[in-house]
């Protein structure tokens, strides 16, 4: 007897009870399909989180001025006292002695304005007054031209680095914006650089932006003198983000004569939040994968169950085969082939459905199937067939011909 004979006889055995075989296959099929889809879904969502973390910038925390002290007692002031972020705060946080984990601090003054250029205009442009370190902290890449310089900040220069949305709104395709004079409100700025397109970490369009020196912005946007809307603090490394956050908060608390808990600023450490959510996602993925794997195991038990039934049903056939000279190994091979065939059919169907299933977005996450999960699930399937088929098959092989022939 060779493999082809075993296969033929296994197919005959399985097709003799089609519904039963199909239900057994279904168990494996669901397990394999579930493993592939769950792993792909987990992989996809963790990739999405990682790309959002990358879009947020590199190891940055954002300190937003809420403007006023909120809830709770405010030391040395009333509920209406104005909280400010001053240039002194900025230079303190940027001082390596006071805040050793901070790489750079970029003050941000934002206002919304209308940009216009030779007839074309764009409302709602985020005019961001800042320092050159902002670009690195926020992970902006220059596509063309040059960045802001410290010199620009010092000289209150009317220069701007503009984002892709502005470029496409104000300029003709193919036109070089560098050197053009663009109006923000009534003030005229010279475009010195163009930012490369950037994906959004949060909601706002990061490309509908014009970066200008904060000193220039202070001149334009009255009422913001020496009071920044935001600070972008870049930590020296991903591990130093939390320490940098603490240092910056301490400096701001002492400047405002309050405690860290009562600071009127919102400190956004979104990378940490996202990392937490990513690890939650991965925990869920592991959990779901375990459940899927358990269903594969249950499918395997189904195979064993059905093979035990088949061996019992066909005891007489086994007796006949032994009487005409089937050696142990032939009987073992016959039933093992049948079990593996069951799991193989289920595994193949599961792989097909799993791979097709990963083409659909689930809850906004695009699943990314991995070759490892497909090959792994399939290999486990075959192993399940061999493992759970072995016991029934060896029981069949061990039957004594006399007893098997007598079985009714």
């Amino acid at each position, binding site marked *: *007897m*060779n493999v082809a*004979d075993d296969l033929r006889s296994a197919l*005959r055995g399985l097709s*003799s009870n089609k519904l039963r075989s199909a239900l057994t296959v279904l168990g494996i099929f669901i397990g394999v399909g579930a493993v592939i889809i769950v792993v792909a879904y987990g992989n996809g969502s963790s990739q999405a989180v990682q790309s959002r973390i990358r879009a947020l910038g590199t190891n940055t925390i954002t300190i937003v001025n809420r403007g006023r002290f909120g809830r709770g007692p405010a030391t040395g002031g009333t509920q209406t006292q104005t909280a400010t972020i001053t240039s002194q705060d900025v230079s303190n946080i940027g001082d390596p002695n006071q805040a050793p984990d901070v790489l750079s601090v970029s003050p941000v003054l934002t206002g919304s304005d209308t940009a216009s250029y030779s007839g074309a205009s764009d409302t709602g442009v985020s005019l961001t007054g800042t320092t050159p370190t902002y670009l690195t902290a926020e992970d902006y890449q220059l596509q063309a031209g040059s960045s802001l310089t410290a010199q620009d900040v010092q000289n209150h220069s009317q220069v701007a680095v503009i984002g892709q949305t502005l470029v496409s709104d104000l300029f003709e395709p193919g036109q070089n914006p560098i050197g053009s004079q663009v109006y923000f409100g009534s003030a005229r700025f010279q475009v010195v650089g163009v930012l490369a397109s950037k994906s959004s970490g949060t909601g706002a369009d990061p490309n509908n932006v014009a970066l200008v020196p904060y000193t220039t912005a202070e001149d334009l946007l009255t009422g913001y003198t020496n009071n920044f809307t935001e600070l972008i603090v870049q930590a020296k490394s991903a591990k130093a983000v939390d320490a940098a956050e603490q240092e910056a908060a301490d400096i701001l608390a002492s400047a405002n004569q309050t405690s860290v808990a009562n600071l009127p600023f919102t400190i956004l450490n979104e990378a940490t939040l996202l990392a937490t959510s990513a690890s939650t996602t991965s925990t869920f993925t592991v959990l779901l994968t375990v459940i899927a794997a358990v269903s594969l195991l249950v499918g395997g038990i189904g195979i064993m169950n059905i093979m035990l039934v088949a061996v019992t049903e066909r005891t*007489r*056939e086994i*007796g*006949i*085969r*032994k*009487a*005409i*000279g*089937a*050696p*142990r*190994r*032939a009987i073992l091979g016959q039933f093992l082939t049948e079990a593996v065939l069951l799991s193989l059919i289920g595994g193949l169907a599961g792989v097909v459905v799993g791979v097709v299933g990963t083409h659909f977005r689930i809850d906004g996450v695009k699943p990314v199937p991995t070759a490892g999960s497909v090959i792994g699930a399939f290999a486990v399937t075959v192993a399940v067939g061999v493992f759970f088929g072995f016991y029934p098959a060896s029981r069949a092989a061990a039957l*004594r*011909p*006399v007893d098997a*022939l007598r079985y009714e």
Partner: protein
Amino acid sequence: MADRSWRDPGTPLAALAPPGPADAPGQAVGTGPVAAPALDTWSEPPVIALRNVARTYRMGDAEVHALAGVSLVIERGEFVAIMGASGSGKSTMMNVIGCLDVPTRGRYWLDGVDVRILDEGALARIRNRKIGFIFQSFNLIPRTTALANVELPLGYAGVPARERRDRAMAALELVGLADRTGHVPNEMSGGQQQRVAVARAIVTNPSLILADEPTGNLDSRSSEDILGIFDQLNRAGRTVVLITHEPDIAAHTQRVVRLRDGLIISDEGKDLAATVSS
């Protein structure tokens, strides 16, 4: 399954077995009418030699002596009926002779080979090569064509597919079922099924054809057919052992061995058997 892959740790099977027709390579069944091999040219061991064989079963605390010490020699080319009432030990005897069961005591040589020293794999091989079984309930593999059923023992013997097919076809032709090769058992009458079983039994060219109540489930016409085939096989030189409780079936044979309570009570030649039936 190739021969060398058998688990046969140097058993003296090959050494002990005479170069009987079953082992002669290339000798296929039905390459013409079955010709009697030139047996007389060798000094052959008997096909079956039982010496004081006993088989005891345990049933709880009690011991049941299904065979209580039987000695019997059956020579090549004999046509023997083993008779007895139910419980006489004839089924146990058939199992022992067919190497489906091993005796608890005594010795049994099949074709000169002492089966007591053989392990399970070697016994399977003996059943495959030297014995052709025919059962009362036909015992064909269900949902499997007549041809595939007949090919099966050749498959276990490791015969290549093409040769398997040719030999199985020849065996089916011999039992007159050349036109039923593609039918599965439940598409055939009992007589046809039993003829397929006979074809399967002879396809490996065994030394011994062992039939257990082969006509028990058949009408008289089909019984005649089957007995006719046995006669034909015996005339062609094959050893046929027939287990039955019907005297008129036994009358077809040359020798009748009677069992009672696990012992042989008579062993008579053709003349006496003929007298019994008349």
